[in-house]
């Protein structure tokens, strides 16, 4: 893509690198569009000050919304597994990787995302540590919601009350964990000033070359080269040249 910069004859050329398939983007937004009503209708039961919304006709409507959204929410990963199983397996493998670069990333995350201190973030693959944590929480959360929610919906009276109670509590804990993760994810992907390309990639499926180089060096350069560059620049912190070369 090239953009002519206003008032000049300069042309800005951006190389775009594909990151997500169309199906992945669609399912991501379907999952979002169902998670939000699920979270809001679930939150009503957490907040005693919202109790009027949980009473009578309103309560019946809330329960219906929660059920419809839940079916779609659980259907999303199933559809993904059926239509693009290789992509799913590739992602799951990526999500579960963890090494010393992730520890370095976690250490650098606060100064980087909050205080804007560049240059101290280790190279990352296609998904950085935080994105992978979000993905693991989302994946596990969806499984836990399904495993606890389906019995709560269909097996009432068949399972003993103590088990039922446990399911309700696990469902609630999963809600707290995924709900907080959702807030952080929303902030970093939509609100945070530095991270605007996340939203672009989830809409158009691509990220710019410069963004990939900066944020996902292992993906851009390959694991060996990216790590070599990082090691080299961190053995001699003065020689910034070496990193760029």
């Amino acid at each position, binding site marked *: 893509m090239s953009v002519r910069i206003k008032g000049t004859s300069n042309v800005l050329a951006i190389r775009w690198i594909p990151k997500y398939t169309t199906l992945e983007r669609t399912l991501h937004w379907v999952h979002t569009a169902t998670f939000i009503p699920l979270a809001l209708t679930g939150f009503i039961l957490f907040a005693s000050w919202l109790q009027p919304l949980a009473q009578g006709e309103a309560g019946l409507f809330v329960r219906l919304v929660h059920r419809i959204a839940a079916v779609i929410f659980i259907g999303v990963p199933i559809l993904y597994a059926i239509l693009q199983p290789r992509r799913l397996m590739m992602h799951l493998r990526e999500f579960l990787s963890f090494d010393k670069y992730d520890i370095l990333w976690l250490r650098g995350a606060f100064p980087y995302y909050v205080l804007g201190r560049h240059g101290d973030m280790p190279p990352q693959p296609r998904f950085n540590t935080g994105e992978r944590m979000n993905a693991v929480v989302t994946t596990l959360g969806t499984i836990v919601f399904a495993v606890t929610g389906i019995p709560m919906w269909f097996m009432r009276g068949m399972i003993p009350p103590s088990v039922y109670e446990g399911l309700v509590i696990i469902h609630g804990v999963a809600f707290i964990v995924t709900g907080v993760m959702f*807030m952080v994810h929303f902030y970093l992907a939509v609100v945070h000033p530095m991270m605007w390309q996340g939203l672009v990639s989830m809409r158009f499926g691509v990220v710019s070359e410069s963004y990939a180089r900066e944020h996902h060096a292992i993906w851009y350069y390959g694991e060996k080269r990216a790590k070599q560059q990082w090691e080299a620049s961190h053995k001699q912190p003065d020689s910034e040249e070496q990193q760029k070369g």
Partner: protein
Amino acid sequence: MKLDRRGFLKISGMAVAGGVAVAAPNVGAAALAENDVGILYDPSKCVGCRACQMACKQWNKLPAESTNAQTMPVEAGGNKIYDTPLGLTAQTWTLIKLGKAGQIGWHFFNYQCMHCTDAACVTVCPSGALFKDPRGFTAYDPEKCIGCGYCTQFCPFGVPHLSTDNRIAGTLTGRAKAAKCTFCQDRIWNGLGGPSCAERCPVGALVWGKQADLLRAGTQRVDTLRAQGLSTAALYGENVAGGLHRMSIIFGEPGQYYLPENPASPAVARGWKDAFHWAGQAVFGLAFLGIVGAFFVSRRAIRMEEVE
């Protein structure tokens, strides 16, 4: 009074159990308020006429139900059932059953909401549809009910039931309403008298009144029955679940009447409803504040010209 070894063991067992119950912090009698009302059921007076069942249906406008013993498998009672319906349902809030229990063998027993002081259904109800009336009984506002069915799960007596027009559609959509004995709350609130079952009972087996009076009357009746030789007579409900507002006289172990020995309100349910929900709100609130704070800090700190 004849007292064999078995009877002696039972009485001493009950004495120990009573002692434990008195020592436990959750004693109903202590929480008893001046205007608490209740029902006392005495099966030794009950003739099984089921006037209570009829009165309940009439006052609460509940439809009749049919029980088809012909189509029922033998394991489920088959062709030797004595009662219809077989248990409490969303349309049957009070029920007389014939059974063999305790010292006096075959006798009738009335089942209805026990109106626990420490009511599990009220603890778990998320919409406030089930609540405690200041007079001690467990009242119910069907307008607020969302049919979640938690009360049907957690009631230690299995009293509330869900009603739905269509079983499959009800399950899929979650549209249903719970129903149970309300102590004829509309009669109480409008000064029309007491529960219709107790008002209709022709033999005084079901009586209603001030809880304190009923406790006295029940204890006296137990003494009388014991003096007549029914050594296992006991008052059930005085000390369980914080004190029941529907007490019964029994002649044996509560289990023989399908009554729980210690129907405690589920402690975890209380923790989940109170502490857990507040903790959840606190976590969400803190996360939100943290993110808003981070936003303002980072907006000042980040130089956009460095951003790729």
